[in-house]
């Protein structure tokens, strides 16, 4: 059984078909790069897998639990960071992570918070409110709440968006550390990230899967990844 199973997912917003019959599965140890232009349906697909948006048709499951019927069980195995890494701005980083740990009913919430602060290198801003953080730290806080319970499935919507090269390196380092034990989906439009981080690539455009293949196969499509991307998403 794959940790993430997506079968024939479709979603329309009024007359606009955002996602059209998308199917794929992700196994433990895989890091899937979810590529596509803005408005291609990447975020909508991720939201449907995370159980935030209800699919019109099709099913998604996480660790064997259907996200529509067994949503709470599915969400215990999921770490999700939405686009822009929203967080409660008036809470300190420590309070926010403690809230996430308490809500998830973790056995030792204080210890989970301590380990996550250390893993994501957030100790020095732990007592600052989220509102006062720089974008780089904010993104890391979003990432931290997604991994605090050491989930089997990790879905990150543009986790490196707007970060400087050092911060991107940092996020990739943490991801690489934990990727072998998890099934990970990362959406991005930074093509260099594919080579560094992903084991597999899914390209989505106009709500449809245009390509689903291993990283090496994708990189072999041509020396200019931007041209490859334009051709696939045209």
């Amino acid at each position, binding site marked *: 059984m794959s940790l993430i199973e997506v079968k024939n997912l479709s979603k329309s917003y009024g007359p606009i078909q955002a996602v059209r019959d998308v199917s794929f599965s992700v196994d433990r140890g895989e890091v899937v790069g979810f590529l596509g232009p803005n408005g291609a349906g990447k975020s909508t697909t991720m939201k449907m897998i995370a159980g935030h948006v209800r699919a019109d048709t099709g099913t998604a499951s996480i660790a064997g639990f259907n996200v529509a019927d067994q949503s709470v069980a599915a969400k215990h195995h999921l770490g999700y960071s*939405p686009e822009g890494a929203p*967080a*409660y701005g008036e809470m300190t980083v420590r309070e926010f992570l403690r809230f*996430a740990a*308490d809500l*998830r*009913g973790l056995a030792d919430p204080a210890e*989970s918070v301590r380990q996550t602060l250390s893993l994501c290198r957030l100790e020095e801003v732990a007592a600052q409110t989220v509102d006062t953080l720089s974008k780089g730290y904010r993104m890391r806080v979003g990432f931290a709440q997604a991994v605090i*319970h*050491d989930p089997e499935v990790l879905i990150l919507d543009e986790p490196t968006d707007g970060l400087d090269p050092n911060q991107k390196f940092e996020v990739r380092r943490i991801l690489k550390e934990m990727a072998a034990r998890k099934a990970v989906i990362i959406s991005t439009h930074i093509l260099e990230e594919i080579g560094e981080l992903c084991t597999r690539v899914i390209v989505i455009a106009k709500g449809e899967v245009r390509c689903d293949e291993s990283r090496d196969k994708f990189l072999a499509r041509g020396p200019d990844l931007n041209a490859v991307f334009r051709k696939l998403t045209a």
Partner: protein
Amino acid sequence: MSPAPSSPSRFAPLIAIMRREFAGYFRTPLAYVFLAVFNAFAVSLAFFVGGLFESGVASLDRFFLYHPWLWAFLAPAAGARLWAEERRQGTIELLLTWPVTVWQAALGKFLAAWLFLACALLMTIPVAFTVGYLGNDGSNWNIITGPDWGVIVGGYAGSLLCAGACLGIASIASALTRNQVIAFVTGFLACFILVLVGYGVFDELLAGILGSGGVDEIRRLGLWRNLEPFTLGLVDARPIAYFLSVAFAGLGLSTIIVERR
């Protein structure tokens, strides 16, 4: 890191959300402004508008008389942030992808806000003591036996239930928008109508439209009409059922609205 628990307590998310929301009021000056405004108005309306002192009667009914007005204004003020703030900050997407049902989240938020309103109400206890003190005949006064505590406790219980009903309405308003100001104004208007129902002028207006039979039915829905028995020391199931139904209907509707959007 701790692995996800196999059978986490059903109450863990509820309690976590309740604690966060309740503490959230005190993270901004809003809570203190709210408590001050509530107490200032509760006391001054009773003494200056209601003539609590001049009435010469050691009863709190003139104090509770204005509570529907206060709750109609302040319950939406306290409830506006419940969902609107989650939408504005985008955290609703986090909350709803954490292992919590919308119902648990809505109940946790509602209970936290209700507890906050209860704190505001409890701060007016000195009014009850004052009336109790003034009401004694001066010879053999005793704080326990002096005032009619049953009636006073009944009034406070009724007022708290009334606050819960207004908060239920405020939760619906908050679930409908990402703008706290709109949530507040909409919630206030809805509660305001329930306050007006049962007041003479408004009833005459309605009678013109519906006939007197219809008005009688509608008057039962007014907030003061249902609060009044509590302040007279009458315990009746109907007003309790009324306030709780409004509160839970609001809670249920706000849950459905959040689930659907």
